[in-house]
């Protein structure tokens, strides 16, 4: 046998090295790592990508072969009143220690999806605050405790009860710490509890305390009625935004602020304040003053009204704004007599005593002594005594109170709770800053899951009723108290028994009516306990001087921060600064210039030995030498949304003269870092452009209502004509309905209730801070806020055009403010409709500009072409993109999704959305009318924004119905106050705005000369 010659491929084969043998069998060798090593592990290698793609394609193909099986699951035993697809409304009450609102809860298939104001309520008159609007989401908050717990570990209710009972029996002194409680039956349950255990003390405190006011008025908030006041002087009380009961006050306030050619009178509102507040923005005369000056102002007003010593009239009212305002306030109050009203937001007992004395001297009709308000009962001194002496207590029960977060001495409470000898029980909904430190967590039902009663004002009662079966294994706090006190009664029966006295006659009928209406008349609440210290004397308060003064304030959305874990509130722009997601230091421009700060520079503010680091926001209207910081932020254990947003300002509050002092002397230093602020509006002025928004003085209006509004004219061959004379498009003819809106800028106070109402109704996603900074917020409705500027077009000659325009962009130091709700104008000649390549936005036969999401391909031409900038683009899948899980979390979980309106779809990524004028409500209203074989009645079809407006600034209706309110306003105000925004572009909106009338000598938005010059004709080119 001859061996065939053996060829070897290389020297390795000849040598037959082990490496060669190892590799010989695998043709491609050991799989190599990516030739180009990647530092980023997340980058998928090409092969993986191909594999995934292949698998993905195959999976998608397979998946699309068979439609998923969907289930239809009916009730086992259908409740009689529930019909799938039909909303039920239940009257209830929202009060969480801040503002009181009587509400109607809209439920679908047994789950609450929206809150609306209860028109039956004599207190809130159908209005609803932004906070109350948003509170429906708190029911579905994923951070809520789902069962009773011992030291954070879930435990059986009975076991917890048993342990607590034993430990309470031997505890000695027991404190129940709560915010203000206005529930008569709850108070009685607490009293019963106190009867069972010796040494029970109920300590009420308010995070936003008005202790001094209570002290000066015998322990109650005076029963203000702003509708009876012709002159309102407010010393730092933000009564339209945050102070005590803003919805109630706004509804009263607006009564005298609405004007028409038949009623050409308005109340006069003079505001002294440090920070630019919502109320200050609405004032006719506003003076920015330091907190330390407030006492002097109160004293001088007191002198003028009570003693008759008038303050001096300043020589130059423009220069000395404060002296001028003081002079005006004093003289007008005196002239108004019992039509005058002074309110003060100060928590200084001396100031409040002076204010009370002034009101008493005026004999003001705007305070109803018979119906004082109970919504604030907190006693700062009692709370301070409790905190300081917490070591003497054997047990403490926190009833929705979170002092570790919202009390300046919270750290002391936290330290005391570390002591295991102290029995600590929390009724709080979440394991918040205080609750997490407690030994026993006995979460209360949400208010929408419970029975309760309320007495916000003497003689006005209201009820809340459960509108959903409790979601978690919680128990109503009152029932817990009763259980521990050995009372086997349910709280429902307990409550009913308590009401027997006041619903005379047939109790069952009276009770049914009260539950149905949500409100009743009668008095159940015992007189509140007197404040600990005696009322201060009317002595001249000493003015503190020196340093930068800090005024701590509340925001309209977040308030005291107890509901901070609500993304709708976090993203609600502050009405004045338009900032979202976080607090900041408001500084006047002069200070920023002097210190060399720019907006967004982080500074360290130190007061009372505590400090916070926050970015700077330059705030026009901020008093010189002062800064402001909002409460309610900087939560650490609120939940996914609120944690680590902003900084907590409560530690900066101090206790002075038996009351929490929300002003302080502060030092500020720059930190060198920057943090961008998420503002939804960064342009501040209207640059003298009347077509945007119009404003006039009451004087002008009285003289001639037809002169207050300026109408655009365009040049045509026949001379100046109305813009609608020349049109490229055919007019629409509406036969059936013509939906339209009228927005009275005189009535709009800018509270933002409509913004949240719209968000809830229309399933609008929350986008978070970064996306707001990217200007991609999704609100269909926004409220534009414009400041006046000192510079006007009349400076062209002195300063040159360019520099004048530059100056016109700057608001003045104490600007006048206009709020303008802005949403899709539903133009009859809509610029968006003509540019859509796929006809996704079209006009309806009822005057609506329709947006069809499923047809939209996302070119965004329409948004480009919209002169009002009201169209919003879905840049992301906000309901599934993990980037938005922390801010828009309610669209991610089954629990949170229960809040979505089932009649409105959740928009997908890549489509435009915008205001639909709540077309789902229009359709429903029409259908109801058709079913009853009649035309819809005015007021039956209301958009969410119009429904939620506490001041009825927004009126919606059918122009084809000549008797509808909107048709009447359109007719009445045509040629007077009615104007269309950007009329010259001839979009012919279906929204009419009514010129704002300000009860002041001048309107600072336009130069008087310019007005005349413009009248001469400066034709727009159409």
């Amino acid at each position: 046998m001859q061996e065939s010659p053996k060829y070897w491929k290389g020297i390795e084969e000849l040598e037959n090295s082990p490496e060669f043998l190892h590799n010989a069998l695998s043709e491609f060798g050991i799989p190599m790592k990516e030739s180009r090593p990647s530092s980023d592990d997340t980058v998928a290698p090409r092969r993986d990508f191909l594999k995934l793609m292949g698998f993905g394609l195959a999976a998608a193909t397979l998946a699309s072969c068979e439609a998923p099986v969907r289930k239809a699951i009916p009730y086992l035993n259908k409740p009689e009143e529930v019909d799938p697809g039909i909303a039920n409304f239940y009257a209830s009450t929202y009060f969480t220690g801040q503002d009181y609102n009587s509400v109607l809860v809209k439920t679908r298939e047994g789950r609450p999806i929206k809150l609306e104001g209860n028109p039956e309520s004599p207190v809130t008159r159908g209005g609803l605050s932004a906070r109350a609007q948003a509170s429906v989401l708190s029911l579905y908050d994923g951070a809520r405790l789902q069962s009773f717990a011992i030291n954070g570990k879930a435990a059986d209710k009975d076991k917890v009860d048993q342990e607590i009972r034993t430990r309470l029996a031997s505890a000695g002194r027991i404190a129940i710490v709560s915010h203000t409680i206005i529930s008569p039956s709850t108070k009685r349950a607490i009293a019963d509890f106190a009867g069972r255990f010796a040494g029970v003390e109920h300590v009420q405190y308010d995070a936003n305390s008005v202790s001094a006011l209570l002290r000066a008025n015998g322990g109650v908030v005076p029963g203000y009625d702003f509708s009876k006041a012709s002159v309102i002087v407010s010393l730092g009380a933000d009564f339209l935004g945050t102070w005590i009961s803003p919805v109630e006050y706004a509804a009263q306030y607006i009564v005298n602020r609405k004007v028409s050619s038949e009623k050409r009178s308005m109340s006069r509102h003079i505001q002294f304040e440090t920070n630019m507040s919502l109320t200050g923005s609405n004032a006719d005369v506003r003076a920015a003053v330091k907190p330390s000056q407030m006492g002097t102002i109160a004293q001088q007003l007191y002198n003028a009204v009570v003693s008759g010593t008038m303050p001096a009239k300043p020589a130059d009212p423009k220069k000395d704004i404060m002296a001028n305002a003081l002079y005006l306030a004093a003289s007008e109050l005196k002239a108004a007599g019992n039509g005058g009203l002074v309110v003060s937001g100060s928590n200084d007992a001396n100031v409040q005593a002076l204010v009370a004395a002034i009101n008493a001297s005026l004999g003001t009709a705007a305070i109803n002594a018979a119906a004082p308000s109970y919504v604030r009962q907190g006693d700062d001194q009692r709370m301070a005594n409790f905190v300081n002496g917490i070591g003497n207590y054997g047990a403490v029960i926190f009833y929705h109170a979170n002092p570790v977060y919202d009390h300046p001495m919270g750290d002391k409470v936290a330290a005391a709770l570390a002591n295991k000898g102290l029995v600590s029980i929390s009724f709080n909904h979440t394991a918040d800053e205080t609750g997490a430190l407690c030994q026993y967590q006995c979460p209360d039902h949400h208010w929408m899951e419970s029975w309760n009663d309320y007495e916000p004002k003497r003689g006005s009662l209201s009820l809340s009723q459960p509108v959903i079966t409790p979601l978690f294994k919680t128990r109503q706090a009152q029932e817990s108290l009763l259980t521990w006190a050995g009372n086997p009664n349910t709280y429902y029966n307990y409550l009913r028994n308590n009401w027997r006295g006041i619903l005379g006659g047939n109790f069952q009928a009276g009770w049914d009516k009260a539950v149905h209406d949500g409100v009743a008349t009668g008095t159940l609440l015992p007189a509140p306990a007197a404040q600990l210290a005696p009322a201060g004397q009317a002595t001249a308060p000493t003015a503190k001087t020196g340093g930068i003064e800090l005024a701590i304030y509340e925001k309209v959305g977040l308030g005291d921060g107890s509901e901070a874990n609500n993304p709708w509130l976090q993203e609600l722009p502050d009405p004045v600064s338009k900032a979202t997601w976080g607090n900041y230091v408001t500084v006047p421009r002069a200070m920023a210039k002097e210190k060399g700060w720019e907006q967004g520079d982080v500074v360290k503010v130190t007061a009372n030995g505590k400090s916070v680091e926050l970015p700077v926001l330059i705030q026009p209207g901020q008093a010189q030498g002062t800064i402001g910081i909002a409460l309610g932020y900087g939560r650490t254990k609120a939940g996914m949304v609120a944690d680590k947003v902003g900084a907590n300002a409560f530690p900066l509050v101090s206790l002075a003269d038996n009351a929490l002092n929300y002003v302080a002397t502060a030092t500020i230093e720059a930190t060198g870092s920057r943090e961008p602020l998420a503002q939804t509006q960064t342009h501040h002025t209207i640059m003298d452009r009347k077509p945007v928004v119009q404003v006039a003085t009451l004087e002008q209006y009285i003289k001639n209502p037809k002169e207050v509004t300026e109408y655009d004219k365009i040049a045509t061959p026949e001379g100046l004509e109305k813009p609608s004379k020349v049109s490229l498009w055919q007019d629409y003819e509406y036969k059936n309905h013509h939906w339209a809106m009228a927005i009275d800028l005189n009535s709009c106070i800018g509270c933002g209730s409509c913004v949240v109402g719209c968000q809830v109704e229309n399933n609008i996603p929350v986008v978070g801070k970064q996306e707001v900074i990217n200007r991609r917020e999704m609100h269909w409705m926004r409220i534009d806020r414009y400041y006046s500027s000192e510079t006007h077009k009349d400076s062209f000659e002195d300063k040159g055009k360019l520099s004048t325009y530059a100056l016109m962009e700057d608001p003045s130091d104490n600007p006048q403010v206009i709020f303008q709700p802005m949403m899709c104008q539903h133009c009859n000649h809509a610029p968006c409709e003509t540019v859509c390549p796929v006809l996704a936005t079209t006009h309806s036969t009822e005057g609506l500009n329709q947006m069809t999401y499923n047809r939209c391909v996302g070119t965004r031409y329409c948004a480009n072409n919209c002169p009002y900038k009201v169209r919003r683009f879905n840049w992301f899948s906000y309901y599934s993109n993990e980037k938005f899980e922390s801010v828009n979390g309610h669209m991610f979980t089954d629990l949170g999704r229960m809040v979505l309106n089932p009649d409105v779809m959740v928009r997908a990524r890549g489509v435009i959305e915008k205001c639909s004028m709540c077309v789902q409500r229009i359709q429903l209203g029409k259908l109801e009318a058709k079913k009853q074989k009649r035309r819809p009645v005015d007021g039956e079809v209301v958009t969410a924004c119009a429904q939620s407006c506490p001041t009825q600034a927004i009126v919606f209706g059918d122009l084809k119905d000549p008797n509808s309110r909107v048709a009447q306003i359109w007719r009445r105000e045509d040629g007077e106050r009615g104007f269309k925004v950007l009329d010259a572009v001839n979009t012919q909106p279906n929204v009419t705005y009514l010129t704002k009338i300000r009860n002041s000598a001048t309107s600072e938005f336009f130069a008087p000369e310019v007005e005349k010059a413009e009248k001469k004709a400066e034709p727009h080119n159409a």
Partner: protein
Amino acid sequence: MSSYRLRSFSHWLLALFLTFTAVGQVAAQDAATVSKEGVTPGATAAAAPAAAAGSAAGAGSAEAIAAGDALFKGNCAQCHAVNDVVVGPALSGIDKRRPLPWIIKWVKNSSKMVASGDEYAVKIFNEYQKQQMPSFALSDAEITSIVAYVKSEEGKGGGATAKTDGGTPAVDGQAPTTGDDAASGKYVNVVLIVLIVVLIVLVVTLVIIANIMKDVLRGRKDLDGRDVEILDQKTDWMGVLKSGWFKGIVGTLFVLVVLYESIQGIMAVGLTQGYQPAQPIAFSHKLHAGEHQINCAYCHTSVYKSKSANIPSANICMNCHSQIKTTSPEIKKIYRAIQRQQPIQWVRIHNLPDLAYFNHSQHTQVGGIECQTCHGPIQNMDVVYQYSALTMGWCINCHRETPLNTKGNGYYDNLVKLHNEANAGAPFTVSSNGGTECSKCHY
């Protein structure tokens, strides 16, 4: 001459084909109209009692009986029959057993009578397993008319009446309708068969005649070359097959068919017409809605008032099935669900995408549309399937074609006037009132 005849033969064939197609289409259209208009059980049933009233002995005018009929079906028929024991006793002879005032009192509040210790009431109550008869808010006159109706129905035979006798009011109105359908269908079929037979005979005759004539011609010797050529001419089928124009036509046809089929296929992606899943409980609409004539709204409680028609909850089943067929394995499933507190998970058949808003009450209550218009002959379905395509095109087509149900509805009065002023001739359809606008269904 003969060549002419031969050519006319092919014309005949063409004509034959066309006729068949046309007839077929007519038949199909007939079927389509039936399916579109639906079958209306209520409509025919209303007419029937008037006829029956003539034979009715005793008191009660025809109107009262007609009114009683409707009331009986709406309120009583779930538990009572005239001549049969259902849940409650058979009602025949009720006016003889009890005086009218007693009956009225009983119908209005039976539990009160039982509680008051009325002897007969207690007896009845105990006799029927202590099953409470619900209270009915009917007026005295209404109850009287129901009694009149019961009287008119007396002695019309047992439960079998409903199924056998075509004319009695107890029968569902749908039976005669189906009869009509069948009759007209049969008629069309007979005509078709006769036509086909005639045509076949004609063709055969013609072929025979042609052959005979050819033979005759072949037998003649006086033909010249050209005639013989024509006579012996044979069609070159292969030539035709190979010719360019033939290939062209076939090719084009093939491409068109493939194109059409693929477009249809693509358009049908996601379509679930005919979807007929098995349900956890073998509930038969044929039995309940068809044979027993239970009103749709009895179970689908909110079909006239809500967006959703409402799939009945188990307690509605229990209204009857606490008494009827309690041993059936299917009904035991309901009992089990109630015992275990686990709702029945039906498989959803009609799935609209989330982006489309549909409201039942708008169509049923306002539009006056029958359930069958969209859901098909539900009363014949043992297992329900998706009858309509539920595509947007299907919706829009109907909105374009259907006139608005404006009669007696104050909402439309002015609109009808305006429409008639503008174009009286055209029907006032849903779409002419904006019913095809995007925001009517998408928001």
